[in-house]
Every structure is written in C-alpha cells, then in structure tokens.
C-alpha cells in the first residue's frame, strides 16, 4: 500500500509556477518545458493553475517584500505533501538583487525549499534533471534538513510582515 502511494506520488507530480519577482527569463524556460521539444508530460508532470491541485511549487525569482506574503500564502494553500523547487540563481539566493532595498532574498527566506536549480536562467534540461532528482528523493525525504530550513524561514517572514505594516 505504501509502495503504491510512493509510486503514484513519483509518477504524478503536478506543478504550480509562481513568479515572486523574476525577470521572466526563468519563467520562459519553465514554459519551454511544456513544448513538444521537452514535453515534461512524459513524466506525468502537469502544470496546474490552482495551488490547491499542486504537489510541487516551481518558484522563480528573488522574493520582493511585496511578494513575500503572497508566496507564503500560495505555499500554505497547497495540500501536504508538498515540495518547493527554487529555479534560477535569483530564487536560490537572491543573486545580484541580494541586499536590494525591496528584496527579501532567495525563496528559502520565506518558505522551505526542497531542491535548488541554479543558472541564469537554468536550461530546461537542468530543470527536468532537478525535478527528477527531487522525485527520486521522495521515497526517502531528507526530513531534518527541511525542518531546519522551515525554522530558519520563520523569523524572516515575521520581519517581512513588520516591514509591510510600517
């Protein structure tokens, strides 16, 4: 029974794409995944329009103060079990926008991230590779690491909320 569960989860990850401040370069690479050349539906991956249906959140771009709360809310709307893939240098760390007056930083400052795919923008092959590596870890999820990151994310968000109120 547990086997069937894991099998189904690995074979049918539905993804949601959220742009929290990207320059659109990464987003175009994600859209390229759906085209005949890369056809990500081979792996059963579907781009879902609603966070309620999604298993994997593809987050692109550094997180701006405006977007941080929205990103958190979209993440909260997803049903468990859920995973986040940070796509692009910006989403991984904030990249060149790190330290900007309107930028919180990478996606992992706000929500726990399961996989990082660096590149500016990463090639579609790299994204497919990253997502598949994520799927291969689903059967043995690195739980501790995730919790640590989630813990780390909380203070940053509190700070964001305060800044938003000011």
């Amino acid at each position, binding site marked *: 029974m547990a086997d069937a569960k894991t099998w*189904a989860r690995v*074979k049918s990850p539905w993804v949601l794409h959220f742009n929290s401040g990207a320059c659109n370069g990464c987003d175009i690479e994600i859209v390229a995944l759906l085209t*005949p050349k890369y*056809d990500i539906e081979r792996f059963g991956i579907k781009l879902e329009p609603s966070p309620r*249906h999604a298993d994997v959140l593809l987050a692109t771009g550094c997180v701006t103060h405006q977007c941080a709360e929205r990103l958190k809310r979209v993440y909260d709307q997803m049903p468990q079990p859920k995973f986040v893939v940070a796509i692009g240098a910006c989403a991984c760390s904030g990249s060149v926008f790190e330290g900007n007056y309107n930028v919180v930083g990478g996606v992992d400052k706000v929500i726990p991230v399961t996989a990082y795919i660096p590149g500016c923008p990463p090639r579609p092959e790299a994204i497919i590779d990253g997502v598949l590596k994520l799927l291969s870890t689903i059967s043995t999820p690195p739980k501790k690491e995730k919790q640590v990151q989630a813990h780390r994310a909380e203070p940053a968000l509190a700070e964001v909320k305060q800044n938003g109120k000011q």
Partner: protein
Amino acid sequence: MIAMIDLLLIFRILVFPGFTFILFLALFCEWIDRKLEARIQNRVGPIVAGPGGILQPLADFIKLLTKEDIEPRDTKKLVFRFAPLAAFTIMIFAMCFLPIDGASVLSSGTSIAESGFNGDLIIILAFATIANFLLFLAGWASANPYGTISSARVLTQFLGYDIPLYIIALTPAFIAGSLSIGVIAAGVPYILLAPWAFVLFIITMQAELEKGPFDVPHSESELVGGLETEYTGAKLAFLHLTRDVQVVFGSALVVTLFLGGPSGPVFFGLDWLFHTIWFVLKLIVVVAISAYITNVFARLRIDQVLTGNWKILLPAALLSLMLTITLVTWVYHPFGIGV
C-alpha cells in the same frame, strides 16, 4: 439457486461490467485522450508510468486520494463534501444501464434487445443532467469566485444543450420504434440510416461534456481551475473521475444509439467477451473523434456557445427529428428497414 443468482448479480455490479470495469474503462479512456492530445500537439504524452504511460491516470488518481484534504472556511461543508461523490455515483449508475457486455449490468435478459426496459433511455439522460447539476453545486459551494463563475457557466451551458441532446437522442428511438436502449442497440447501426443525426449528436455531446470547443466552464486561461479550483485530495480525485466517467458515458451513448452498441460478430459461444470487445473498440473510435474535435478547434466565447445552442443546434435538431419521422413513416418502415 437464488444465492447463485445473487452472487452473479453482485459480481456484475461490483466487478464486471459494473463498478470496477467502468472505473478502469474511464481511466483508460483518459489515457487515450491525453495520448491523442499529445500526438496532435506533436508531443509524446505520458510515457513513464506503465507501458506507454497507460497507468498515468491511475497514478494521478491514487496520488490525489492520498493527498491532504483541505476544506476552506467559507465553503458550504455538506454540499462541498457530498456533491463530488454523488455526481460520481450517479454517473456510474447511469453507465450501468448501458449494454456493455451485451446486457445492462442490472438486467437478467439474455439478448441485447431484452437488456433494458422501455424508457431507460430517458432515465439515463436524466441521470446525466442530475450529475451535471451536482457538479454545478460542487462549484457553487466552494466559495471561490472562479468556481462560482465556472458553475454559472456549467448551468447555462448544460441547461441549454440538454434540449437538443434529448431531441436528437430520440432519432434512433423513432427508427427503432422503442425507447429501450437494448432495442436500439440491437438494431442496425443507425449511423447508416440517420448520419446527419450522428453528426449533430457528436457536436451536442461535445458541448454537454464541456469539451472543446465548448469548454468555456473550464477555460484555464480565465478561470484558473474552473469549478475544481478549491478542491483538493480525494474530492478532487472524484471530480476528475466524474469527468472521465462522463466522457465515457457520452461516448458510450453515441456507441449505443448510433453504432449498434455491443453488437458485432461473436465466436466460440463467448458472447459476453466479444460483445465487450466490440463495445470498447467502438468506444475508442468515438473517444478518438471527440479528442480530435477538442484539439483541432479553438474555444468559443460564451455568447457564441449560447448562440450556437439556441439559434443553430436547436432548429437543426428539430429539423433532423422531422426528417427522421418523415423517412421512418414513408420510407424505412414500409420497406422494413431498421425495425
């Protein structure tokens, strides 16, 4: 002896050709649909889950069943929980009236013609309407603006298209001289006697199933997830499954009314097996036609959908009915065709 019959009936309801068979048939048809869509778009389609990706719909279904089930605060809890399951149950029940293996699931008849009762055609059409109405309720109860808009569109669309659907479904009934699905399925394939009605029925069915180019209630570019937007987990799984069974039901209705249902040559005395094979083969043809129409035409606007319904399809359906009655009265029945 009575115990034996009961066991057989329970087997027929639960396993073949009842619940389990219909479930897997629906998932199989979704796979065909997705594969054809991918091929038409020059893609490969699902390929990793099972041979050729044939287990993809099953994987989606199991995954959704095992996901967290979120109920947003403002939903109407009772309807939100009850509607998807009820719609699914009613669609499965409607499928049970179709002579899949040469007899409908609940019948004890021995030939195709005896597999129903007079008037079951109207009953299953009514079931399809009720299921659509439950889907409308499901979207309405989800307290989401997109779900509400989508529900309103579902209601507008299926209330309108039900009328031509019922009228055109009567065409084969007039030729067969009976409202029993069994009698209609046992006759010659009525596509030969009334091809215009077949074309009209396919178009109407496409609208009734909310498939392209009539998929305004599900247009992802405007309505996010349509009426499913707020649904997660098992409820979403059953909404998806309801849509799959609806597609199978619509195609099976086309097969039964116009393509002779399960009739075809049978060998070795294995009537039920060959009837099932013929039925499923014809079903696949209709599903393929439907998938082709969906992918080749662009989506209509909501006003075009309504105009098409009241100004084109309804008069066309009435004309088709008049033509059929004329032909039946003066040509077919006097010469003994199709009775």
